[in-house]
């Protein structure tokens, strides 16, 4: 029982070779400063190489959303803002509804015939129920837990997203710049530029997951949803992807579901802690990990349950 009382091991964070100057600028948002760690929770150390958000624009608004599977209420009346310019992390024990909430943001929950959603989710002030699902899912794209590139070449994985539905038209030449830029934004281009014709499923796990991020970015979305994107990856790949996620937050609103509290602490600007479908606490990462308001949050982040 000793492990329950001792704090988790300290976070180690490798320094980037070239820390961006952005850290110096004073944040204009009410969001926290990244360097006020609280000793008692065990979440110490430098939060990340890039500092607090420079700006934040509200892209999505989750308003009193409940999701039911048959009779079971998986998400209970949750309200949250999703902002571009920051990373929102959903944490909580297994089965707490965080993935369900994430999937309802691009109406993927509708694929489950028993799922029912009440409340409103707004994307740029438009109810997503009024947006045609395929259009919505190009504006709110998603990366999954398991790396799942399509069984085709690296190039075609991105080209598939850029082309009309099932069409093969739009020649390689025409798509090339867009494919390259998507791979570049996912930090993969330098590694695969000579092997664009190789089967994507032969890449390493970390590269596959970055290809999936590139694929999600190729649609030029406003919101990027990540469902435990690093849980199948080794620590090195995890770090590369974490750096990438933090970099992406200026261009897209990022929502990430994670089981890994250290990861949430490292990359999130705001954290929402869910428990049994309830949104227990939503606040800035430093506040939630350093000085949680709720006892349940305190227990969870200190490792008392999970």
């Amino acid at each position, binding site marked *: 029982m000793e492990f329950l009382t001792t704090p988790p091991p300290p976070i180690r964070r490798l320094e980037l070779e070239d820390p961006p100057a952005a850290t110096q600028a004073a944040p204009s948002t009410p969001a926290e400063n990244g360097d006020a760690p609280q000793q008692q929770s065990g979440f110490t150390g430098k939060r990340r190489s890039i500092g607090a958000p420079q700006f934040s624009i509200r892209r999505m608004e989750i308003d009193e959303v409940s999701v039911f599977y048959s009779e079971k209420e998986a998400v209970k009346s949750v309200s949250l803002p999703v902002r571009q310019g920051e990373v929102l992390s959903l944490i909580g024990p297994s089965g707490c509804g965080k993935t369900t909430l994430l999937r309802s943001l691009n109406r*993927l929950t509708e*694929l489950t015939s028993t799922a029912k959603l009440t409340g409103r989710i707004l994307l740029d002030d438009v109810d997503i129920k009024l947006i045609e699902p*395929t259009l919505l899912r190009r504006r709110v794209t998603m990366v999954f837990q398991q*790396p*799942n590139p399509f*069984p085709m070449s690296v190039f075609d994985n991105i080209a*598939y997203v850029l082309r009309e539905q099932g069409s093969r038209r739009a020649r390689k030449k025409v798509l090339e710049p867009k494919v390259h830029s998507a791979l570049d934004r996912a930090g993969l281009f330098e590694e695969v530029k000579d092997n664009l014709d190789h089967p994507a499923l*032969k890449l390493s796990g970390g590269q596959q997951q970055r290809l999936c991020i590139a694929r999600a970015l190729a649609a030029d979305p406003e919101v990027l949803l990540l469902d435990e994107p690093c849980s199948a990856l080794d620590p090195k790949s995890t770090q590369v992807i974490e750096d990438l996620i933090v970099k992406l937050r200026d261009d897209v609103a990022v929502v990430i579901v994670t089981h890994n509290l250290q990861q949430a602490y490292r990359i999130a600007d705001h954290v929402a802690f869910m428990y049994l479908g309830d949104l227990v606490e939503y606040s800035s990462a430093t506040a939630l990990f350093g000085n949680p308001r709720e006892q349940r949050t305190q227990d969870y982040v200190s490792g008392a349950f999970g």
Partner: protein
Amino acid sequence: MDSSVATPPPPAPAQKPPRAQKTAQGAVEGSATWAPIDRVGLAICWALGLLFCAIAVAVVVYLFIKGITYLKPSMLVTPAAAGFSQAETGGFSDALIGTMIVAVMGISIALPAGIAIAVWLVEYGRPAALARVTESTIEAIAGIPSIVLALFGTVIFSSTALGFLSRTSEGVVFGRSFFAASAMLSLVALPLIVASTREGLNSIPRHVREASYAVGKTKAATTRRILLPASRPQVATGAMLGLGRIIGDTAIIVVLLGATQNFAPVEGAPFPFNYLRGAGTTLTNFVYEASPTGNLNQPEKAYAAAFVLLLMVLVLNATVDVIHRRARKVGTWSS
């Protein structure tokens, strides 16, 4: 503060993972400690496996020897003819071509239909009751002996409405043609194609479909560009197995193809419909007729034709192998 934080806690050397001890012992479980009944079971498994290997090898080797002895290249290009000696009765070129015709026609009906049914069952399957009925229907077709299908086929293809698919004379529909035989043969191949396509589609993890939906693709686009290409090896396996069943079937050929020794084209119809509407023969039928129980009774030619048939099946099996090896190069999803 940073430096102290960055130092990882020293590893505890006392606790070694248990796996190391296991490998140190090098113990691989042997059957020596098993209960007698299990050891007998294992022995039976081994014996049966070896027995079936032996049977397969015996068939192939026997047919190879017989086939190489009796097969002359001229048999492949000369049609069967009437005659008093083996030298006069020609070869089996009509049967060889007939086999190819029913194979191509049968599979070109069965493959699209089988893929369509499998896609509907796996990806849509609503209403559930209809899906269940479809499933059991396919299973029922798989279980029906082909001679029964053949009889059923004579009923269908002798109807006046389908007279254009076979020979008609004075309003009477003959009902036996390459069209009729291929249509019924496609039913023999269909369950295999449906089963293996379903297997292929089911082996694709759900999150792969969702990944495609999550970039705004429709179900149709996902099926066409992701799911079907990903299950290509299984579809191809089903097609090859189906082809094997088609070229190996005899009952439908005898009943629905007329089982002549040569092509019997319909006069007045344009090529190739004159041949396809007419009766014909295939290798299996030729083997049957040329065997000692058949009308021709020239066993040497039966062996030669059977050898050709066996070669075709072996080529199909090899093709399946190549397809699977190629699929492995593309890789698959973890877990």
